[in-house]
């Protein structure tokens, strides 16, 4: 019974496939994987928007939306209808093809990333040998879409927003990838399923998750920060800083195309969080041994919701970074920290998970953190500003 509850969707898919003729089974299998992913994450997106708006409101001593439906829970529906029926304004001198294609690519890239994420035991659309690499490859192609969006509409704010977004995404991609390398080294595979399976079991009370190691914890934090920056989310949302750039690269988008950007951004965030769960938080494994009977996908979504709540909390707390602070943080803190973390992960391999490993790796990470944190230029007074204008 427990087994069935855990494998409910896997069994369901197999049974449905068995009903279909053999000729269309591969195609049907694809659709049976894609359909639920899109449905579930679109629902999660709707839930997150209302959760975020209400949560941000409470964090700032406001009510948040509370008009549509009981306690405002139907707000996402109203937002969606609004986005659908709005006029789609395309500026006169736009590059129409690129303008149209950019939101499509963003959505497609964000959705492609879900194909390698394991949502539960045996619940993965595409178990690639190089799953993590696939994830980053897909993430790299969103930069192109952002460039298209910013460039195609001949708007200086959009262009500046796109340039900022790309500079930021390229800068944070390095620590993002480097922070995962420790996990890949320890698990010895690039396959997401393999990484999750490597984190099964318990040591004493603690599960064998990577986050419960000194390098794993540091890597997790680095990964979350870099993923937040990759998703252009607060406090790294200066590509769309409305006080200076109107709305960044989607300034000239309206109606459903704008909604697609919005949706794509959130999908990217969920995907990054899901990868963080896969890499560091034990994927679909239960956190305590006696709760092992709870279906694996439930654990996955509980962790995902936890990370979403954390990102909402950070968004409600942190002010937006300045552009130079952002770059300094990426290159002078995140990158060296990720490299030191990699070294710690390598040492952990030799010392093992004993007290010695904790001492050596923990102190290495802690010393690097304190030293880099105190020597970063963030706290120093800024030199006199020099303005350069576009030539």
């Amino acid at each position, binding site marked *: 019974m427990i087994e069935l509850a855990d494998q409910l969707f896997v069994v369901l898919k197999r049974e449905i496939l068995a009903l279909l003729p053999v000729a269309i089974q591969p195609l049907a299998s694809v659709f049976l994987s894609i359909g639920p992913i899109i449905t579930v994450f679109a629902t999660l997106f709707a839930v997150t928007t209302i959760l975020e708006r209400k949560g941000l409101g409470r964090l700032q001593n406001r*009510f948040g939306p509370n008009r549509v439906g009981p306690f405002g829970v139907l707000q996402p529906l109203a937002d969606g209808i609004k986005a659908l029926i709005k006029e789609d304004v395309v500026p006169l001198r736009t590059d129409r093809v690129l303008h149209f294609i950019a939101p499509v690519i963003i959505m497609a890239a964000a959705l492609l990333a879900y194909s390698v994420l394991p949502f539960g035991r045996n619940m993965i659309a595409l178990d690639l040998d190089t799953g993590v690499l696939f994830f980053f490859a897909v993430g790299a192609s969103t930069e192109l879409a952002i460039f298209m969006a910013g460039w195609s509409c001949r708007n200086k704010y959009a262009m500046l927003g796109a340039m900022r977004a790309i500079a930021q995404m390229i800068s944070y991609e390095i620590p993002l990838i480097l922070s995962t390398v420790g996990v890949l080294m320890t698990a010895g595979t690039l396959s997401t399923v393999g990484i999750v399976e490597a984190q099964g079991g318990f040591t004493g009370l603690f599960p064998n998750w990577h986050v419960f190691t000194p390098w794993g914890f540091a890597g997790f934090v680095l990964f979350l920060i870099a993923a937040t920056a990759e998703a252009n989310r607060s406090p790294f949302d200066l590509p769309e800083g409305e006080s200076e750039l109107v709305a960044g690269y989607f300034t000239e988008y309206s109606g459903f195309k704008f909604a697609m950007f919005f949706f794509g951004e959130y999908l990217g965030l969920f995907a990054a969080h899901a990868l963080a769960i896969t890499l560091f938080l034990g994927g679909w494994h239960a956190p305590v041994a006696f709760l092992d009977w709870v279906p694996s996908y439930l654990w996955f979504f509980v962790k995902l919701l936890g990370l979403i709540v954390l990102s909402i909390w950070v968004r409600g707390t942190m002010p937006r970074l300045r552009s130079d602070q952002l770059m300094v943080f990426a290159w002078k803190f995140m990158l060296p920290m990720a490299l030191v973390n990699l070294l710690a992960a390598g040492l952990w391999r030799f010392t093992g998970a004993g007290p010695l490993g904790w001492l050596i790796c923990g102190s290495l990470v802690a010393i690097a953190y304190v030293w880099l944190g105190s020597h970063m230029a963030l706290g120093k007074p800024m030199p006199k500003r020099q303005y350069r204008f576009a030539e």
Partner: protein
Amino acid sequence: MLGTGLIKGMAETARNFAGSFFQEDRLTTVQYPEERIPTKEAARSFPFLVFDGDDAAKGLRCVSCQICEKECPPQCIYIVKDTTKKPDYMGKLQFQPKIFDIDVSVCMSCQICVEVCPFDAIKMNVEYEMSRFGRFEDLLIHKQQLAKPNEYFHKIHPTDAAEVDARLAAEKLKAEAKAKADAEAKVKAAAAAAAAAAAAATATPATGAAPKPKPATPAAPAAPASVDQPAKPAVTTPPAPSTP
């Protein structure tokens, strides 16, 4: 150290989050259609016309002098004088406005019309929910909608209204005294020609400007001491409306 600020900030927002569910005073939002902040006495939004008594058509204080129309900076007031004179609130025959329109979309709530009005006929309302469905006709407010009884004025601006009433009552008393003096003077003139010439010299200017506007000084010198007292906010008993 790096990160302590973040943790402090997140603790603060977490306190906000939890507190907003238990401490009602944290949530400063007024949920508008259900709750409203009571308007301040000095609030102003849009002018209205004051009338005395029960009948808006008869009791309108406005005598169609058109000063407000001329003074209005955005020129949102449109007045057409009536062709025949009718008795005003003081009983004098005056021209009354046949049309008195104010365009909401143009009015900028500057209160200049109120300040220039010599008859205390136009005052500022506190009503702020003035949205309409039409874009043109509905935003032009006509005389019938603009006319509000004096009691309404008392309700929204008690201090101001009491002051205005006191002033108007004083002026009325003064005018009656003047009229009485005129009548006595006429009787006297019939008796003695020399005395009549002296009495007429003082009476003519007074009859010429009976409802003399004195917005700054509410009390008239000839008024009794009881009416002379400046009205307090608590005193909201309106004087008997002086019907013509």
